[in-house]
């Protein structure tokens, strides 16, 4: 299922110039109406949103559980952590599956999957003070593509924080 967006990103990268140094691939998606991205190699699969079963007493930010290929996976709503407005579920909404330690997988809810960006290291700006302090901790840097600003998230950091809290 990541195919469509991946090929789009691939075509994009081919259309663009070469010789920009080592490239990192990021999958961009919308959260709270803004564009965020995570490194694509961390993503195992992208699925349409199945019915999510809410879990009583679950920590805040856990939307509930879903069943995927015989596994029960917890779905995390990053907007809670990032203090972003929660837009309603739409037909564009997706769940990104991210394998974490011990063979477990968590699902990340996103409002819409956009495209794959290939950014060379010099296209990534360090996270300045522009962002709020809370979100800033989970950001690798900022990517700029055709005038758009993409927030590159540090997935390890944001998931770890979740478990600690």
């Amino acid at each position, binding site marked *: 299922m990541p195919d469509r967006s991946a090929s789009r990103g691939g075509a994009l990268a081919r259309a663009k110039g070469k010789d920009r140094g080592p490239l990192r691939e990021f999958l961009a998606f919308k959260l709270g109406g803004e564009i965020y991205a995570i490194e694509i190699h961390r993503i195992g699969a992208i699925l349409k949103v199945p*019915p999510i*079963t809410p879990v009583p007493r*679950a920590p805040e930010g856990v939307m509930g559980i879903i*069943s995927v290929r015989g596994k*029960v996976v917890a779905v995390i709503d990053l907007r809670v952590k990032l203090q972003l407005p929660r837009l309603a579920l739409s037909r564009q909404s997706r769940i990104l599956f991210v394998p*974490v330690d011990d063979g477990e997988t*968590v699902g990340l809810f996103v409002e819409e999957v956009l495209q794959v960006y290939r950014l060379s290291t010099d296209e990534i700006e360090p996270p300045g003070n522009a962002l709020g302090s809370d979100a800033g901790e989970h950001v690798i840097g900022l990517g700029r593509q055709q005038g758009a600003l993409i927030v590159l998230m540090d997935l390890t950091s944001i998931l770890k924080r*979740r478990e600690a809290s």
Partner: protein
Amino acid sequence: MTDIGDKAREDFFSEAQEIIESLSRDLLLLDTAAHSGAVDPDLVNEVFRHVHTLKGLSGLFNATRLGTLSHELENLLDDLRMGRVQLSGDLLDLLFRAVEMYGRLLAAEKGGEQAAGVDEFDPFMLEIQKSGTRRAVQSPTLAYDLDPGMLAVLTEYEEHRLRNNIQRGLKLYRVRVVFDLATIDAGLESLKSRLKALGEILTYLPTGTGADAESIEIDILLASHESLDSLKAAIEAQGIRIDEVPKRATEGPGPSPDRMHSELAPESIAIASVAPEAPLKSSSDMPMQHKSLSDRAVAVRGPDASLRSVAQTVRVDIQKLDHLMSLLGEMAILKGMLGRLADKTRHEPGQRETASELARLHHTFDRQLSAMQGGILEVRMVPLGQVFEKLARVVRQLSRELDKDANLIITGAETEVDKLIVEDLSDPLMHMVRNALDHGIEARQERAKVGKPAVATIALNAFQKGNQVVVEVEDDGRGVDDHALVKAALSSGILSPEEAQEISRHDALGLLFMPGVTTRKDVGKHSGRGVGMDVVKTNIARLGGVVDAQSEPGIGTKFTITLPITLAIIGALLVDVAGGIFAVPLSSVQEAVTVDPSSVRLIEGREVVTLRGESLPLCRLDVAFQVRDVEESLARPGKMVIVIASASARRCGFVVDRILGRQDIVIKALGGPLKALRGFAGATELGDERVGLVIDTPFLIEEALAVSTRAGVVAHA
């Protein structure tokens, strides 16, 4: 070791583990035999053989320390086999410690790192070497007129067995048989098995004389209690001749019998007294003196040395079985869909034939699926004896360390439980057994003072009860001092003074499972830090089980663990709570009833209904799950639907919206950010992509009845 495949290494570990377990089992038998005074030499041989196999395996996998340990043990056991060292309590101790060492070395090998206790390795090796200090071997002072030619070819082991049998006053017979070369394999085997019933075969050798080219004559030296006549009656046939080996005229006093000195056994015991079978020797270390014996005959000698594995078994990773179970769960969902389709079709006009066809298919599918489910479950089942054996070792070791005599009595070792449950049960059980020995059982003097038998009893009982398994750990020690428990709980703030006043004895015993409650002043090496029983309880709860304590001061303590037989697939009652589907394991459901809200009374701020004269505390699941607040829940019209659940003699009525029906479910663990969530045992697929949460009944009951939440539910009402 990089050149050896992971698969092969895995096999090595599991095989080594199995051998170590067998070794441990046989050592326990040996220990029991040493107590009773009748040590079967074959048992010693069996122990020797395990170590020998381990040595071979270790060599193959380049596990140096495992190999060294096996090598040293092999020497020691060889000395034991030959009667060069005595089987003493200390020697058994050493052997049991070797089993522990094997376990640690294996773990270190597996983890590729230094495991705890492996640094004791070198001193331990020295200790083994020292224990093997050899006695001078007595030259056989045989009072029998044996053919010197025959004596010359006896191996050391055979000589030892010969002496041992003579000392025990058995008669020696020489059985001379002529076999046809073509049928010697079968003929010799059958004769051997008949002779074994009559005595011990000390050796057998071809005579090398008197036979033609097509046949071979064999001399068998047999030690037996039987008289010559009865032997003749039993085995004499064509081509078999039996003579008694005459005693020499100059019969002197024989050497003093082999004795074992043991602290465990009050009286000395001869090592070998029953020896129904021939010495077990692999053919490789049995040099054949007579060249005339064909290779075939050599093969006959060591039937146990065959390369074929004896057991027709496969080792399977439990995760593969989990996967099968998961697939089965999905098939069960398909079955449900098929059933619904069959129902729907029935009401369609003109579809009568298809409907009955579908119904038949559904029925057959259902039957096959249950059979398959039963089959997979059966594969997962292992006898509890696997854990009990480890515990026997713990009891033995600890009773020596604590200088307390204790007998471990095991019943129901054959009771079968899911492999995963057995694995996770061993730590809690070990803890309980240690507790029983350390805290429960009194010191020797104390027992003598109150007139209890010097040897204490710890009983492990297992039995099946419905679809649950009960494991009891019972001791005849001093019992639990509930007053001291209450005092301890009071001082650590777990109980308020008023609660301490009112607490019942059963509830006081429940304090045993609270973290930080101990009545013990001195913290022992083995237990007594007040952590432990709470961990035991948590671990057992994780398996879907409950643990309960009963105790009589001065008489003893009994812990009862009730466990589901399997967690892989369970029957569950599906209920609707505020639109969410939840599964209540059937093993904890007593019944479901509806009651009129007006019959609910408030007792100490808790909702209670009286059913058939018994009061039942209620727990509104919608409120407990925070999907409705108390007002909303109370405002619901109509009768209340109550699922009566129980866990370890405590009952609670779960108030739900609706009962949806019964279903077999496969429980999936909640992971990731939900790992620490309490109140749910997991989740299960319900079909149509829906997921239901499985209720952790013991936890919710306890929570509902907990003192601290007493005011919770109805405070607002």
